[in-house]
């Protein structure tokens, strides 16, 4: 038996750390890592609720698997974009990529 709030607290902590990382980091790859942290927090919640509700179809776990797949696709595309930006602009700092800023 594990108390449900404990798991949810862990997940909330990971999410908050991820938010801090996304807001405070300049390096695009580090921002991607922080996004992974937030996605992991969400997955943890999905799995915890799936086990808590004793769902026969395991919807929460399957949804967590889908989120992992989408995260993999997101990192692949994201890194391709980051490498392309680096090739063109010699920087991966997100605050220096301001070509479209008004």
């Amino acid at each position: 038996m594990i108390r449900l709030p404990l798991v949810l607290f862990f997940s909330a902590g990971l999410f908050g750390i991820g938010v801090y990382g996304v807001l405070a980091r300049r390096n695009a790859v580090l921002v991607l890592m922080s996004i992974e942290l937030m996605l992991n927090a969400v997955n943890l919640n999905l799995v915890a609720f799936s086990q808590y509700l004793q769902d026969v179809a395991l919807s929460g776990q399957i949804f967590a698997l889908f989120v992992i797949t989408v995260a993999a696709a997101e990192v692949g595309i994201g890194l391709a974009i980051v490498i392309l930006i680096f090739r063109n602009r010699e920087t991966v700092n997100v605050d220096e990529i301001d070509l479209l800023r008004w």
Partner: protein
Amino acid sequence: MTWQEWFFTVLALIGLGAGARLVTAKNVVHAALYLVVTLAMVGAVYLLLGAEFVAWVQVLIYVGAIVVLLLFGLMLTRAPIGREALDNQQRVLAGIVAVGIIVGLVFLIDGAFRGERIDTAAATTTAETGSSIFTTFVMPFEVVSFLLLAALIGAVVLARKEDPE
């Protein structure tokens, strides 16, 4: 506290500590290695909760593939070392927002789910997960495989070197 809760608390503290080091690390490669620790701890929590297949997918995909991909990304781009080079000026504001989110969520969770328990004895096997994917969720599964194909092609098209002519 049951032994599962003690074990969980240790895993969660290691995971949160590594996560905090990840967003404050001065060296990008260290940040990636802290990410490995956090992801491994989340995987261990999945095992503890009884979600066997998700735990091993977490180890294979996240620790095995995504972190390696991120390390490649770090090594193909110039990664400066030092806090000023990696963080922007909004650090204090970001900290306030993050602490606000954590405190808000903790109050919300404590108010909504105090005393609720997860029965870890009812672990789900890989066979159950597989039959659920290929019966109830077969359509989303196909859609997700198409998404992966699109991402693969997209990444190749984006990262490919332009032809000189």
